[in-house]
């Protein structure tokens, strides 16, 4: 896969080739150097570029020569009064130190890294950076999804079967149960608080229900739906009885009870002419 990708023509050439091609043009234009350091990814990149111009394996480059090249390069840039980022200068200072270490034989009292060790570290870092460059180039030149290799263009959308997997915990369930039962219970309590039928309430209902009735009808029948509620029975009966007496007195309804404790019958006031 990788090979075929790399062999393909018309696609980006490996990055290091690009890079070295660029390097050559730079070298060609070296005398009239108008290098913008922006083109470099930092001092290590610049060093790698310079090393490349030595055109040898990084393992065999002359670190001394490289350090001199870099220092010379920086010198020229400064002569042109180009602003240089600090890390370029730090690297220059380090290379100058390295250079001195390489030129002056190791002093017995010097415990620090030898020039050779420092040079090796630099070589290692350059090689590692170059290796990452190559790796990047090899990566981008692989057969890439969406460029060389493709996924199914018409994926079959899985029909969204709305069958959901519902979840709820026992705690949710119990909370829901308790909460609603409690809510209801509290509502009921509230009704009971104002559970006394006022005379006015009873009167209004009787006028509405009995006023238009021609037939004798038991009081309980009117009040059926009001009596149904446990605990309200007595107040409903008492208030409506009192109200009915008042209505009788006013002549709005008639009332009849055949014997003690028998049902009370009521009807609207009849036209006297029709009474038998």
């Amino acid at each position, binding site marked *: 896969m990788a090979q075929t990708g790399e062999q393909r023509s018309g696609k980006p050439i490996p990055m290091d080739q690009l890079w070295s091609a660029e390097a050559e043009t730079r070298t060609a234009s070296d005398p009239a150097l108008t290098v913008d350091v922006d083109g470099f990814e930092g001092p290590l990149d610049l060093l790698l570029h310079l090393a490349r111009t030595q055109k040898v394996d990084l393992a065999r480059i002359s670190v001394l020569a490289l350090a001199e090249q870099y220092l010379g390069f920086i010198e020229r840039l400064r002569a042109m009064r180009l602003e240089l980022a600090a890390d370029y200068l730090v690297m220059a200072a380090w290379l100058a130190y390295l250079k001195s270490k390489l030129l002056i034989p190791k002093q017995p009292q010097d415990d620090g890294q030898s020039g050779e060790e420092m040079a090796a570290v630099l070589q290692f870092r350059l090689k590692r950076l170059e290796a990452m460059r190559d790796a990047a180039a090899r990566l981008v030149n692989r057969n890439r999804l969406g460029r060389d290799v493709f996924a199914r263009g018409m994926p079959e959308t899985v029909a969204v079967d709305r069958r959901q997997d519902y979840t709820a915990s026992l705690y949710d369930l119990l*909370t829901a149960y308790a*909460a609603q039962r409690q809510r209801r219970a509290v509502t009921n309590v509230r009704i009971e608080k104002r559970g006394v039928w006022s005379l006015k309430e009873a009167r209004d209902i009787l006028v509405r229900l009995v006023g238009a009735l021609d037939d004798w009808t038991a009081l309980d029948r009117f009040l059926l739906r009001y009596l149904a509620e446990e605990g309200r029975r007595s107040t409903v009966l008492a208030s409506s009885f009192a109200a009915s007496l008042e209505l009788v007195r006013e002549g709005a309804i008639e009332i009849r009870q055949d014997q003690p404790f028998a049902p009370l019958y009521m009807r609207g006031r009849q036209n006297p002419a029709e009474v038998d």
Partner: protein
Amino acid sequence: MSESGNVVPFRPDEAEAGDDRHGDNPAERLHLAETKRMAEAIVFASAEPVSEKALAGRLPEGVDMPAVMAALRADYERRGVNLVCVNGAWAFRTAGDLAFLMTRQAVEQKKLSRAALEMLAVIAYHQPVTRAEIEEIRGVETSKGTLDTLMETGWVRMRGRRRSPGRPVTYGTTDAFLDHFGLEELRDLPGLDELKGAGLLSARMPANFAVPQPPANPDALAEDEDPLTDLDLEDLGLLTPRVDDD
């Protein structure tokens, strides 16, 4: 198209078995194979069915398109994916008999709505319970959707019909319900005291407040319950009416 060569796909070696039209010429055989690969890749990657014309435009010239596509279709005839031609355009489709695979993926985890949860709780505690009774207990009307959702969960079932005017359907919970909520049996549902103890119910509930105890055997019908018959299910639109045989 050459039936004999293509009707039976997956022959061990098509090339050796020979193809009526191309069998004689190795170059042509190679050409067909390569063209088939190309057509295969193009149709696969395309976002819409590829017309034969469009296909021809991208394949080497002089290709016997019908032959290529017929061969490719034959290749896929018995696979999990088939090459189909709709209005002269080619596309891959899941094999018809595997369509069921394309519907199962979308199992969404969804939380029950509050209303559904409340109704489920009432059904669990008060079963067997009719819809009217649920509404009475909850003090709100029940939307059809909520009950449907509950039936969908598989946690609620119709148990039977109450032996009372209108013969309303009674609801109860299922074994899946017990399973999901980690209950061994319905009687494990906490009672009044436990609910109070857990702080879920106020300690000062009205004196007449009660929490029913669900039946020990969830499958046994209550005294005033009749089993659901096929006829009932028909009534409820859950069974298509039977056609009498005679």
